């Protein structure tokens, strides 16, 4: 919990990882390229005093994770969203066993979400059933740009993906987190296209689809799709640290999200270990839309509380003390949620 100026904020970090990118786990040059890309994000968007060394960045381990999140980071609950990346790392990038065991040891603090790859076919379905029997995860994280033999990406609307979503439905796996990475095949199309989310959200209305990184770098396509679907949510992983380097851009991202998907569907995420939650929580509580951006209303304290934790707590049934709870905004199920709050001053 984070407290400031007499207000208490219940914090849910909706996207964290326990990864191992050390050289001995790298399968090939792409393993190095991948973690180097993450580290450049970290170096580019972090305040100087929050910078980690490259060595620290390669691997953190459970003990450090617990400290960074729950001792130093104000986090009440966090959700693992693993990326497997088996073509880049010998034992995978996200550490399944370590993360699952850590979550099992701290069920009040950690939720373990799993992952699957629809290109694993029937065998993958068997494994999903067996893994769920053992680990009972409430959600999965899907990275559509995962490489897999000859294939370098898939769509959520592929027939095999539908088989897996049907299985999720049967098993009670309700929360589908999607990272639209640069999917390569087919190369003719936009690698970051999010339109498959539209299809699958319409066909599986009983599942929740949380689009990570709020669709970046295709914020506009994400907003347009999400506004039409009542079961599409936006995760702020990677978007949060723009508060520091590019606060006007961040203000516009938040302003657009509140307009298109509303204040009840946006989730805070540090994307640990890309960044640590402490400075992100502190700065978000202090953050405000610049005054000259009259096309957006100021962010309210209640909106900050919902984004920082209450929204994700509701999706994951995480108990929140009664005095910290807030009612829903009573927004429409689809369409722009708060059009009257987002207009240039001249139009109001």
């Amino acid at each position: 919990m984070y407290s400031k100026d007499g207000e208490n904020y219940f914090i849910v970090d909706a996207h964290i990882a326990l990864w191992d990118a050390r050289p001995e786990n790298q399968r090939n040059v792409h393993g190095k390229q991948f973690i180097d890309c993450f580290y450049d994000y970290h170096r580019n968007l972090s305040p100087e005093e929050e910078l980690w060394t490259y060595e620290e960045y390669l691997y953190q381990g459970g003990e450090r994770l617990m400290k960074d999140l729950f001792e130093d980071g104000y986090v009440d609950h966090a959700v693992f969203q693993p990326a497997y990346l088996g073509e880049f790392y010998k034992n995978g990038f996200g550490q399944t066993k370590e993360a699952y065991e850590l979550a099992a040891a701290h069920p009040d603090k950690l939720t373990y979400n799993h992952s699957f790859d629809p290109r694993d076919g029937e065998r993958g379905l068997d494994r999903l059933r067996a893994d769920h029997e053992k680990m009972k995860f409430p959600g999965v994280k899907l990275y559509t740009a995962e490489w897999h033999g000859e294939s370098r990406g898939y769509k959520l609307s592929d027939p095999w993906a539908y088989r897996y979503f049907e299985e999720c439905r049967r098993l009670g796996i309700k929360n589908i987190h999607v990272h639209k990475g640069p999917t390569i095949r087919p190369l003719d199309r936009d690698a970051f296209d999010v339109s498959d989310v539209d299809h699958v959200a319409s066909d599986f209305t009983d599942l929740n689809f949380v689009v990570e990184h709020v669709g970046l770098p295709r914020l506009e396509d994400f907003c347009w799709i999400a506004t039409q679907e009542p079961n599409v949510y936006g995760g702020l992983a990677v978007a949060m640290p723009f508060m520091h380097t590019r606060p006007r851009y961040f203000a516009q991202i938040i302003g657009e999200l509140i307009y298109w998907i509303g204040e009840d569907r946006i989730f805070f995420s540090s994307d640990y270990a890309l960044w640590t939650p402490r400075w992100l929580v502190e700065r978000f509580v202090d953050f405000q839309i610049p005054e000259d951006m009259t096309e957006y209303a100021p962010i309210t304290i209640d909106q900050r509380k919902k984004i920082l934790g209450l929204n994700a707590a509701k999706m994951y049934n995480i108990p929140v003390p009664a005095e910290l709870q807030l009612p829903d905004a009573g927004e429409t199920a689809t369409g722009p949620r708060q059009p009257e709050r987002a207009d240039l001053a001249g139009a109001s």
Partner: protein
Amino acid sequence: MTAVLTERTVRDPGAVQDVRQALATVLDPELDEPITDLGFVRSIDVTGAPDRAVVTVHVRLPTSFCSPNFAYLMASDSKDVISALPWVGKVVVELDDHHDSALINAGLAADAGYRGTFGHEAEDSLEELRMMFRRKAHTAAMERCLTELLRADPALTEANVGTVRLGDLPAGRTKDALVRRRTALGLPAEPAAVVLVDHDGRPYPAEHVPMALRRARSTRISIDGNAHFCRGLLRTRYEGSGADQADRPEGAEPADQHRLLPITVKEIHP
């Protein structure tokens, strides 16, 4: 704007300048900016006989995982524009440090074309993709003009921007950019043309105008955000590369200002 050059390779600064000018016509299809302004041209090297010169260009991108289709387009467009220079005998364009560098560089060397380079991963062509982003660039340019007008004229409302015409826009960089993008799409650019149109040039019915403007706004925010983030990541990845970047006023923030570093001699192959 000066290329990062290794001393030994420079024969004729004029030739290098010609190559750079040719490369300034190659656009990043996603950001709609010349690759020379983005700092993506790492080096230009001209050797050989003056009338049959060998030109070697290295291209670099902000991350190893930038979309390979865009990477390929920029590299192959680079090769095409340099090949068109009359004094050039041979062109080598190499994409550095990308996850598909080997594949793309081999395809370029063999003039294998898009489908020849990517095999089963390529279906038809990248022209539709190019067009999609040309349309987005137009959408963003249109929104910039109308939002500037809304800020300047408190009496104008969002609901009423649907009847604004090109002739109503003040002259300047923002309007010039819109006219350029309209022309690229084959849309009329005369003063009587309505500003807020879809990519086929059709205006919106009055009741759809606010939503069309809002969608255009999210597109503009996205492109500006990506353009600055890509620049920033390039500077993080390649020390000193900021010296090769041109400022982008649209969407700029204080942190986007970077110290211009002196030209440095740099190893191309670490």
